[in-house]
């Protein structure tokens, strides 16, 4: 069976190549830092399942140390100039989009075919991981097509990939760090404390104010944790189930579904949701690390208000 470890291994090999190429990049004064950082990332992806929790923990501390003490720089992989790119673009025309579409189309068609034909029941791919596998397959097909069509230098894909990963830098790893922090928070009982505290501010007798505290709690705790998934069980246990559903007889489906979406409004407003907010800022080379968040607040706040109103009017029909 194709397990998700295959995808980890493929990504691990890619990071290992980034590490080696970084090592040889004399234009980067901090090349050893980059090599070590991407090398550890490769190790985690290739061997993380067998290293044991404590060694994985040490690995994460090392990643944090390298990034946190400014030991990473930006490499200068060989690439084309803007003029050359404009020339290529004119010469190749819209055919250039075709390889770009191979990845999404492979992921799309692969997922659909796998789920809606008997193929899926044959157990070829680890359950619920098929999109990730098809994403990798799509990337490999696209690479093959590009090699055959445009005949780039053999190392070009890895060098160009390194150019992008260096532009993102440690932000590429931050989402996983935050997920790990969430696990520590949960295990230390942060959720329970927050739940009790929120519960203690709910005024008696007012359905609307209870909905409001539930929504604010979802959004705020999501902002703190960077993830509505961490907030939902806490707020459901503290307010959603005992007060909104049991006490005031709210519709559990509405409270659950729209409660979660109220948390998503918080996700739009927090740097803790690094993969949605900080990583794209790095990827698009924005000057302001919080630029994406600032562009989202104007949508998140009105939508939050709409969600509160939706819970109030739909759950208590």
């Amino acid at each position, binding site marked *: 069976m194709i397990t998700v470890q295959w995808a980890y291994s493929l990504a691990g090999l890619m990071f290992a190549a980034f590490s080696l190429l970084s090592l040889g990049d004399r234009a980067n004064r901090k090349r050893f830092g980059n090599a070590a950082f991407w090398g550890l990332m490769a190790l985690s*992806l290739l061997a993380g399942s067998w290293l044991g929790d404590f060694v994985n923990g040490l690995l994460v501390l090392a990643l944090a140390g390298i990034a946190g003490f400014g030991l990473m720089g930006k490499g200068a992989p060989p690439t084309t100039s803007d003029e050359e790119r404009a020339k290529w673009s004119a010469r190749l025309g819209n055919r250039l989009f075709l390889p770009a579409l191979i990845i999404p189309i492979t992921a799309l068609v692969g997922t659909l075919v796998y789920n809606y034909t008997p193929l899926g029941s044959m157990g070829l791919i680890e359950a619920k991981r098929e999109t990730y596998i098809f994403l990798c397959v799509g990337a490999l097909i696209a690479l093959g097509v590009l090699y055959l069509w445009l005949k780039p230098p053999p190392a070009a894909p890895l060098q160009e990939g390194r150019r992008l990963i260096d532009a993102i830098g440690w932000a590429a790893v931050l989402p996983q760090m935050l997920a790990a922090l969430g696990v*520590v928070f949960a295990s230390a009982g942060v959720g329970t404390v927050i739940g009790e505290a929120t519960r203690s501010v709910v005024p008696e007798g007012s359905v609307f104010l209870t909905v409001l505290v539930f929504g604010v709690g979802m959004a705020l705790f999501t902002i703190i944790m960077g993830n509505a998934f961490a907030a939902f069980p806490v707020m459901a246990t503290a307010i959603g189930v005992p007060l909104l559903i049991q006490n005031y007889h709210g519709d559990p489906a509405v409270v659950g579904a729209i409660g979660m979406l109220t948390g998503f409004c918080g996700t739009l407003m927090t740097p803790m949701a690094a993969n949605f907010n900080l990583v794209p800022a790095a990827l698009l080379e924005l000057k302001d690390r919080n630029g994406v968040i600032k562009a989202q607040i104007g949508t998140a706040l009105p939508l939050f208000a709409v969600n509160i109103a939706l819970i109030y009017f739909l759950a208590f029909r």
Partner: protein
Amino acid sequence: MSHYLVLAGILIVVAGFALRLNPMLVVTVAAIATGLLGGMSLFDIVSLFGKGFNDSRLIAIVWIVLPVIGLLERFGLQQRAAAVIRGIKAATVGRLLILYLLFRQGTAAMGLISIAGHPQTVRPLVAPMALAAAEQQHGELDEAETERIKALAAATDNVGVFFGEDIFIAIGSIVLIQQTLATYGYNLAPFELAIWAIPTAIAAALIHGTRLLLFDRRLRRRGK
């Protein structure tokens, strides 16, 4: 009162981000402090931190697309995306991003989350297209406008996914809602939950779409 001590980790995170310290260090210190205040040993904290990191490696798989995206950029993909938009006279930042928003909501509602995203589509296609549309309509952009347009492209991707995915019945958050409520004896089918994601999805499209059109108007009105 003492059990409120575990919240110190949250304070560290908030202060660290506010002071613009390196988030990797801030997160690590917050994890260790929270664990110690919660009565864990250092060995247990490091192990737990490592386990949490290791269990979330799925997040890293998406980087697999970088060599392909980088290679396509080498051959002028961003320039090509911009050229296509320059060929469409009616294209504006707002209209283009609204189209992308609806595409993203629609496909996410079918469970197709990873077919697009910041590395896959926003950086190579959507952001350069949006910039080209703005330049075509309004001439040279200053740095603040360029930054804002790129940020809006990323924001549109997020809004599209967040408020589309819960319409799909087999998405993680629907499963989580279902499981959480089931522990209290409310056994809901995923479909019953997913259907209530639709009103918010419509509201998200209306609010974000309106903001995008207002952005068009703001660009139009600025001094030339």
